[in-house]
């Protein structure tokens, strides 16, 4: 964790308005974590047998892992002050292509996956070039690219690719190689640690944070701003491709639009995360907390037998709430 920013030296004056302020600041920093803990406690008390079990926790973690990977890639684009609306479509598209490479083109598994991940990163680079060199607004360009990918995917295979996928590919997501944890969880941990280290401990990470803080100042500091942004987009594309690949492995098929829904989950998670610990800044550990909130929430909903259409209500609600909290946190940071 980056050295925590110094808090005001003196204790706040014992005045009512200050108390309220302090409470609000505290809530905007730790509110998400408290919310997560409250959910866990609530479900544990009300559904002890089902919720509070090793199997269920592993289930939650597995579900969270795919979202966490794609969301941490998205975190990078938000850190540099951009947006990527293509990630869900990239995940779907790559998930389809990776199965196609194995089933139709007969490529070995490792090569198919390598191609898939490179493809994702390549789409990210394309997004980055459109945003930095052509200067198309990121919302528009990534939405455009994403929509095109849907069409291209349809052209490639209008039907789900389910036959001819090697067993070993589906085993990737079903296996438990380390500590009896599902492989996607392990992959998530590796990706998150790597992204966290890059963001917080390397030149490029510091430069990404600088670019997100003040583009003009970064330029004048000698940072090659365009490269940094393209790197962020490429990372987002790579992570989306990884999530898409894992999803196909989990489903045992390549299906059109299978991962589109991850876009919203990722945004909800990242914005929840930005309202965690730091005032409205995007960061990897926050994103993980955001993902866990979503996963525990979904899990709870299904345990209590909530109808499936509750899920989008929950998801959309969380997204709005998260963005709201993030904005509030930033406002308090600005007036502090």
């Amino acid at each position, binding site marked *: 964790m980056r050295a925590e920013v110094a808090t005001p030296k003196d204790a706040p004056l014992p005045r009512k308005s200050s108390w309220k302020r302090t409470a609000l600041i505290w809530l905007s920093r730790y509110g998400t974590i408290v919310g997560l803990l409250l959910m866990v406690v609530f479900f544990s008390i009300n559904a002890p047998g089902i919720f509070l079990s090793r199997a269920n926790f592993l289930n939650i973690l597995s579900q969270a892992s795919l979202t966490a990977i794609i969301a941490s890639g998205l975190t990078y684009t938000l850190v540099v002050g951009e947006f990527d609306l293509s990630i869900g479509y990239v995940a779907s598209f790559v998930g389809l292509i990776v199965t196609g490479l194995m089933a139709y083109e007969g490529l070995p598994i490792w090569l198919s996956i390598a191609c898939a991940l490179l493809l994702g990163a390549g789409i990210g680079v394309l997004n980055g070039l459109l945003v930095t060199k052509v200067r198309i607004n990121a919302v528009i360009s990534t939405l455009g690219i994403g929509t095109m990918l849907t069409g291209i995917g349809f052209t490639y295979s209008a039907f789900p690719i389910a036959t001819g996928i090697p067993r070993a590919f589906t085993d990737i997501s079903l296996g438990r190689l380390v500590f009896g944890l599902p492989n996607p969880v392990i992959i998530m941990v590796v990706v998150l640690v790597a992204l966290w280290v890059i963001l917080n401990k390397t030149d490029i990470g510091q430069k990404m944070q600088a670019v997100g803080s*003040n583009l003009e100042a970064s330029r004048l500091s000698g940072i090659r701003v365009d490269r940094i942004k393209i790197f962020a987009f490429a990372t987002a594309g790579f992570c989306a491709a990884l999530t898409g690949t894992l999803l196909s492995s989990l489903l045992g098929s390549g299906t059109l639009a299978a991962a589109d829904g991850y876009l919203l989950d990722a945004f909800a998670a990242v914005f929840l995360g930005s309202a965690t610990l730091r005032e409205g800044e995007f960061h990897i550990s926050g994103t993980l907390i955001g993902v866990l909130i979503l996963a525990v929430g979904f899990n709870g909903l299904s345990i209590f037998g909530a109808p499936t259409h509750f899920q989008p209500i929950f998801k959309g609600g969380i997204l709005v709430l998260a963005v709201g909290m993030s904005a509030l946190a930033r406002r308090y940071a600005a007036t502090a």
Partner: protein
Amino acid sequence: MRIRGLTKSFAGELALDHADLDIERGKVHGLVGANGAGKSTLIRCLAGVTVPDAGSVAIAGEELQRGSPQASERAGLAFIHQELNLIPHFNALQNMLLGAPKATRFGMIDWQRSGVAARAAAERVGIRFPLDARVSDLSVAERWLVMIGKALTRDASMIAMDEPTASLSEPESEQLFAIIRDLSAQGVAILYVSHRLEEVLRLCDRITVLRDGRVVGEAERGALNKKGLVRAIIGHDVRTPDASTRFAADRSKRPIFSARDIAWKSAVKGVSLDLYRGEVLALGGLIGAGRTELAHLIAGVTRPDAGRFELDGKPLEIADEAGAVRAGIALVPEERRSQGLMLQQSVGFNINISTLKKLRSIPGLPFVSDRKARHQAEALVADLGIKTPGVAAKIAGLSGGNQQKALIARWLNAGTKLLILDEPSRGVDIGAREEIHDAIRTLARSGVGILVISSDVEELALLADRVLVMREGRVTGELTGADITEARIIELSYQDANDEEGDDA
């Protein structure tokens, strides 16, 4: 207006400490003080943007509702901040009527009828440009007129102005002063906040000095001279410029940096200059003389249409900002907040951002060593006397002067050969300005090329070893040694370029 016992604290620190102030109709009231003395907080309290912890404000005997911008506006208070709150792509009239009730016709705004009051106001402030001109096409001075017109449109009885002349040229400032005197003659109270003490002394009927949130001095016009005012603000005397301390560089040696016939659009028309080792070279002149544009050309922000640069005798090709930085040319920009600082980041982050490569744990691997980063930042903080709770503190919490020092610190370990400082002490208090000047001088003597741009002639006279005056994109004069006086700089700034005998330094 009577202000009594106004108090406000942020995070346990008093920004305003029982401030009392009386502002009378028809008077120009000056408010001065170092950065962080509480001027802005006072104004924000009046404007209703900040809620004071204690104290009262009464206007014509009537208590002002706290923390309500609407109530402040109804009470006839108008505020013009340094960053003018204008909408660039609206025209002047639209901006003046922004937020004011407008006459409508069939539900559509009737600009003709709505504009009556605004036009009258425009007349009063002497607006000569058409009111349907887009604000983005207006000069800074003209924008000020729009803001004042906007205040008058609402029948403001008091107008607070924050650093109005910071980005105005000399004649523009004079024009503004005339308008201010006019307004006060018409019974409008003016609260005038400025770091430029001469202005305040000349313009204001009454001056209040704030220090550390407290009112430490009040004086009627004439009761105080500049020295006294400075003493009241910082608590001690300030040095006067001394020509004998000016450094005369050895100009027979090869210059550190030279520019030849640099041209860019219509802003820079064939500028040549040489910068020698050890000297502080300054560019004087009016706003719009092409100085900032020249700085941008040298620092790679824009590319010249013609001309060439040389650094250490070697021809220099700069593709962009990053290229300039790699070559050893750095710019400390004029807009500190928008172009210099990464406000949400720490002091250390802001200082280290241009030297990350040097701070790697293991050379060749891209990992930044937290320890090296902290050490470098702490050393530079100590060197420049940056006042901060620590290098991990957010830079947003520092005063303008200390933020500026951090921006200078950014370049001290970066292998900088030429450091360009654009308006290095804008919005910085006198004490900090002196320290910044010392730092700049030390850097110059240590062999870093220093090019300072300043519109503050006093600053030029205090700091520069040699002054080049620019006017309309050309260098129109050069001053050295004892010739560097405020009067001479101003004279040259206004001199018509055609009259000059082509002394292109």
